[in-house]
C-alpha cells in the first residue's frame, strides 16, 4: 500500500498521535507525506498546535514544602518496618509504648465522653492521679469509674495500656490515638534538638509544620527534627491499631441521633434553633477553613481548656521540657470532650471547629480531630454539617483506618437528612435568626467546672 496516498480519514485518525510524537516508522512517514500535500489536514494539525501553544502558557508551579518533612519521617518509619530492621533502623521505635499508653488515655477520654449519657455531669478528670503514673494511670482511673466504655472484664487496664499491646486491648480508642496523642510525642521528639524544643514551645505545631522557612532552616534531614518524630510514631500506633474495627465497638446509634439531647419529640423550631447554634462561620466553612487563623479563639480556649487537661495527660515517660503549646491541642480536645460529656455536642463541635482551624490537613492529628468533629455535629443533630465533615474525612483520608467509620457516619447523617426532609419539606428554609453566641455561651459553664476539678493537677 502506498503510504504517500493515505486518505484524509486515515491520517486524521493518526493526527493526534502524530501531533504528540507517538508515531514511528512507516506510519509517521505516511502522515508526513500526506500532510505535505493536503492543506485541510495541515490546517487541522495547526489548529491542534495553536491550542497546545496556548495551553502551555501554564507553567509548572513549585510543590509546597508543607508536610514534606513529616512525610519523609513517615516513610522512614515504614521503611524500617518493611525492612524488618535490615535497613534504616528507627530511632523512634523505643518511644512507641509511651505513645500507645498516653494516646489511649486521651482517646479513652473521648470515647467515654461520646458514649456516656449526656446528663451525667461527673467530671472524670477528677479521678486522675497526681503521681508519676501519668496518662496510662489516668486512663485506668477513668476506666474504673466507667467500666462501660472499656472492654468488659478488664477492670484494671493500666498494665495493658502501658504496653504496646494496649492498642489491641482497647480497639475503639486506638485509631484516634494514632492521631491524637501529640503532646508526649512532641516532647520526646523535641528532645532531639534544642532548637526544635524551643520552637515547639513557642508555637502550635500546625504552624511549625506549615512554616516553609522553618522547614528549610531545619533542612530535610537536619538536626531539628522534632515534628517528624510525631509522624513516625503516629505511623507506629496507627499500624498497631490497623485492622481493629471501630464499628464493632461503636454503640449503635439511631439514624437520627438528635433525641439524645432532647429526649422528648422536638418541634421544628427547636431543631432549627439547634442548627443555627452554629456560628456564622460554621456549617460549610468549618473543615474548609483549616488554613484560616481563628480570631476569637484565645479567650474561649483559656477558659475552657486552661492547662488542666494537659496536666492530667502529662506522661510519666516524658520530661516536661518544651513548654505547653503543643499540649494545647490535647487540652482543647479534652475541653471539647468535657462539653460533650455534659451533653453539649453543639458546643463541643464549635470548639473542635476552632481547633481544626489550627490544624493543617496534613497534620497527623487532623484525622482524629475531624472525625470527632463530625461525630459531635452528628450528636448535636446538625446532620448536614456532620455529613459534610464525614465526607471531608473520607475524601481527605480515604486510607485512614477510620475511613470506614466516617463512611458509616456519613450514611447515618444522610439518612437523618432524608428523614428531616421527609418531615419538614425544604430543609434550611426559614431558620430563625437565633443568636448562636447565646447558645454557645450558656454551655460553657460545665466546662469551667471541668477546669476547676482538674485545677490542682496543674500544680504538679
Amino acid at each position: 500500500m502506498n503510504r504517500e496516498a493515505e486518505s484524509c480519514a486515515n491520517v486524521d485518525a493518526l493526527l493526534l498521535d502524530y501531533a504528540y510524537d507517538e508515531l514511528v516508522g512507516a506510519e509517521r512517514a505516511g502522515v508526513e507525506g500526506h500532510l505535505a500535500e493536503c492543506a485541510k489536514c495541515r490546517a487541522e494539525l495547526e489548529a491542534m498546535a495553536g491550542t497546545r501553544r496556548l495551553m502551555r502558557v501554564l507553567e509548572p508551579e513549585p510543590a509546597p514544602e508543607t508536610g514534606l518533612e513529616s512525610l519523609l519521617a513517615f516513610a522512614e518509619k515504614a521503611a524500617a518496618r518493611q525492612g524488618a530492621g535490615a535497613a534504616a533502623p528507627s530511632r523512634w521505635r523505643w518511644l512507641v509504648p509511651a505513645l500507645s499508653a498516653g494516646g489511649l488515655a486521651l482517646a479513652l477520654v473521648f470515647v467515654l465522653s461520646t458514649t456516656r449519657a449526656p446528663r451525667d455531669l461527673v467530671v472524670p478528670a477528677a479521678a486522675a492521679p497526681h503521681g508519676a503514673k501519668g496518662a496510662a494511670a489516668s486512663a485506668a482511673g477513668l476506666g474504673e469509674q466507667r467500666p462501660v466504655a472499656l472492654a468488659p472484664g478488664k477492670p484494671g487496664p493500666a498494665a495493658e495500656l502501658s504496653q504496646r499491646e494496649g492498642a489491641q486491648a482497647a480497639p475503639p480508642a486506638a485509631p484516634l490515638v494514632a492521631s491524637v496523642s501529640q503532646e508526649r510525642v512532641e516532647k520526646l521528639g523535641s528532645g532531639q534538638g534544642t532548637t526544635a524544643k524551643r520552637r515547639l514551645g513557642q508555637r502550635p505545631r500546625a504552624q511549625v509544620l506549615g512554616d516553609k522557612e522553618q522547614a528549610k532552616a531545619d533542612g530535610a534531614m537536619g538536626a531539628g527534627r522534632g515534628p517528624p518524630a510525631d509522624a513516625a510514631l503516629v505511623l507506629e500506633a496507627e499500624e498497631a491499631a490497623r485492622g481493629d474495627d471501630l464499628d464493632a465497638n461503636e454503640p449503635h446509634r439511631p439514624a437520627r441521633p438528635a433525641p439524645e439531647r432532647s429526649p422528648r419529640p422536638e418541634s421544628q423550631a427547636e431543631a432549627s434553633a439547634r442548627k443555627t447554634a452554629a456560628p456564622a462561620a460554621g456549617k460549610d466553612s468549618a473543615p474548609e477553613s483549616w488554613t484560616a487563623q481563628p480570631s476569637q479563639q484565645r479567650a474561649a480556649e483559656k477558659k475552657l481548656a486552661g492547662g488542666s487537661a494537659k496536666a492530667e495527660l502529662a506522661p510519666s515517660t516524658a520530661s516536661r521540657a518544651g513548654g505547653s503549646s503543643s499540649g494545647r491541642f490535647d487540652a482543647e480536645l479534652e475541653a471539647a470532650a468535657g462539653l460533650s460529656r455534659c451533653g453539649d455536642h453543639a458546643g463541643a463541635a464549635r470548639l473542635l471547629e476552632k481547633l481544626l482551624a489550627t490544624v493543617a490537613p496534613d497534620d497527623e492529628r487532623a484525622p482524629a480531630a475531624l472525625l470527632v468533629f463530625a461525630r459531635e455535629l452528628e450528636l448535636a443533630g446538625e446532620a448536614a454539617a456532620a455529613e459534610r465533615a464525614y465526607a471531608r474525612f473520607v475524601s481527605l483520608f480515604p486510607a485512614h483506618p477510620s475511613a470506614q467509620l466516617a463512611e458509616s457516619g456519613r450514611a447515618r447523617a444522610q439518612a437523618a437528612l432524608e428523614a428531616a426532609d421527609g418531615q419538614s419539606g425544604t430543609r434550611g428554609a426559614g431558620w430563625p435568626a437565633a443568636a448562636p453566641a447565646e447558645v454557645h455561651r450558656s454551655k460553657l459553664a460545665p466546662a469551667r467546672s471541668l477546669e476547676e476539678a482538674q485545677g490542682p493537677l496543674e500544680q504538679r
Partner: protein
Amino acid sequence: MTESLADETLMLRFKAGDARAFEQLVRRHRTPVFNFLLRLCGHRQRAEDLLQETWLKVIRGASGYEPRAKFTTWLYTIARNQCMDALRKESYRKAESLEASAGNGADERPLVERFASVHAAPDRNAHNAALRPQIEEALDRLPAEQREVFVLREYHGVPFREIAEVTGVSENTVKSRMRYALEGLRKTLSAMGVEGDMAEEAGARSLAT
C-alpha cells in the same frame, strides 16, 4: 551515586527498607504530581492535601508494590483516583449546598479560585501572563474526564497508552477524549477572543521527565 536509578528500582529499595530511596522518589516526582493535581482539581489547598495523601498511599502501598507497570503510571493512578473522588464529592456537596441556599445566586465555586496566580512561577513574559486566567478558565471548563487526559498528555508527557492505564479506559477512548478536549479548549478560548497564534513559545516547558 544512586541519583539516576530507575523509579521502579527505587520503589523496590524502599519496599526493602531503604527510606532514602523513597526520598529520591518524592523529590523527583513531587512537583509533577502536585501540578497534575492542581490542574486536575483546580484548587490549591485541595491539591496540597491530595498530594500528601497520594504519597502516604505510596508508602502504605509499598509492601504490595510489584513493578508490573511503570512507577509513574502507578503514581498518577493513585493521584488521579484521589482527585476524582474529591471532585465527585465536591460536586455532591455543591449540589447540596446549592439546594440548601436556593436562590442565593452567587456560586462561589472553589474551582474558579484556580491556581492562584500569586503563587505561580515568575513569568517568562507579560504577554503570556495576561493570557493565563483565560487559559485556566478554559481548562477548568473541560469535563473532568477530558481534563485528566489532556493534562497528563500535554503537561506530563504521558503517552496515550499509559493514560489508558491510569484512567482505566481504552486507548481509543483516551484519544477520543483528547480530541474533544483540544476542540473544546479551542472553542472556549476562541469565544474568549484568545486565538492559537497569541501565545509565545517561550512559555512551553514540560513537566515530563
